[in-house]
């Protein structure tokens, strides 16, 4: 494929409307950056969820409360599947101010591997950054002290 064609493809891709408004689609390169500790200069939580995951709702609820009380905390969500119209109300109810990502058209296994090679797809999966190079990753429902400690909000 020629470089001009590639550039045209890239342009066409970015100009395409997203399937579900507000979700940025991830490819493997963007996914890798998302879970690199060096990407964050402030306490940040990257929370993976899916429409099917009832346990994920508990974490999103907890994070919604925490982010309201801690202005320096950033919460980024990642739907571990392609976002559809139904994803919008599922996430809107938590009113999380951070960026919303979802899987894009790249191979889902490549995206998952880029997010974390040691993650087997279980949800919720959460990445916690203290903004100073520290990173923790945890599966399942979390409690408040765990999140506060791993993000450096509490010592």
């Amino acid at each position, binding site marked *: 494929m020629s470089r001009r064609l590639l550039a045209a493809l890239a342009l066409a*891709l970015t100009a395409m*409307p997203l*399937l579900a408004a507000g979700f940025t689609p991830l490819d493997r390169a963007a996914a890798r950056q998302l879970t690199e500790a060096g990407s964050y200069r402030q306490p940040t939580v990257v929370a993976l969820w899916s*429409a*099917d995951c009832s346990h994920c709702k508990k974490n999103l609820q907890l994070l919604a409360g925490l982010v309201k009380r801690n202005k320096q905390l950033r919460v980024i969500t990642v739907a571990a*599947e392609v976002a559809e119209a139904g994803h919008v109300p599922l996430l809107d109810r938590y009113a999380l101010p951070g960026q919303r990502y979802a899987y894009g*058209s790249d191979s889902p296994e490549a995206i998952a591997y880029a997010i974390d090679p*040691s993650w*087997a797809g279980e949800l919720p999966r959460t990445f916690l950054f203290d903004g100073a190079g520290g990173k923790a990753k945890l599966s399942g429902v979390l409690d408040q002290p765990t999140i506060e400690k791993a993000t450096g909000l509490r010592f």
Partner: protein
Amino acid sequence: MAKFVSISRLLASGLLLGLLAPGALAADGMPGMAKAAKQELGASAIFAPDGSLLVATKQGEHVMLYRSRDEGQSWSAPAAVNARPEAISADGENRPKLAFAADGGLLVSWTRPLGKPYSGAIRLARADDGQNFAAPLTVHKDPAEITHRFESLLTTPDNKVIVAWIDKRDLEAAKAGKSTYRGAAIYSAVSTDGGRSFQAERKLADHSCECCRITSALDHDGTPLFMWRHVYAPNERDHALARLATDGTPASVQRATFDRWKVDGCPHHGPSLVVDGAGVRHAVWFNQKDGEGRVFYGRLLPGAEIRVEGQRPVGGPRAAHADLATAGGKLAIVWKEFDGERTQLRGLVSGDGGQRFDELQLAATEGASDQPRVIRRQDKLYAFWRTEKEGFRVLVLP
């Protein structure tokens, strides 16, 4: 730019469809061009008594049935199973399923998502002649718009059809009564007329995991077995194995794995079970054991408590979604494993009942793929794998 537009127009208009393998997704024919769309590759394959290979997939609001008379070299144009369109689950742990009733009737089951999140109804359609399907029926009597999903379909030599699924009616009742309930439940329904009608469903067990596929097999004495991921108190996501009495009630429900993965989460990773000609139960499953997530193989020995014999990891740390079958004295396991660039289809074959295995490198794909299956034709085993780019792949196993 002109070149790009013309290709995309061709793709959009379906003119290039004829160039794509059956089961491949037209919109994703060229890498990077497709706008993100939900991948619903869930497919099942079965050899019919006449030797033809049948595949069930989802296309829009229809379950589609493909036939091959040459073991997957060429395929018929697909035929719709459900004449009236309806929603169908075919992503991740979901797929339409195929079975033959003892009287020769072809059965297709699927989960129909309803309006509310997590809700679904278990549907089943029957074709007496293997071609012309009657309108699908809902297997359960419970009409509530709640979870009835992840069905498993099993037929017996006396023309029974047994369907088991994940059911949240007990969880919903607990919520309404302001009490708590661990996980979901497994319910099953029995048909004694080859799937034309079903008796009222019964509960097999409380406290199953919520969104992992269920597996089924006939035990050494012909007794129906169902195996699923369970939630043992307080939150250990090991597996349970149920033996059913002739009326469909659970004769026993036993813990079948002992890896003690404690997590309040959704593994999205269900087991597979098969019973070989000598009556030995072989299973593959995913669990986190001692902090490491792996696919495991083991033999589930019967007794007052099930003992797992020969438990061993299958593949590497990225192995996922294994399936297995036996035929002609062979036991075959297939799974997929992402290698950092591509998804590999790998296999293990044993000629001595699972004591020793030979490793197989079967195929690879660049894009998305369904979970692989092992299917059987008389004494031969095959891997069946649907990939986004290549479509249906049928591979003879040694």
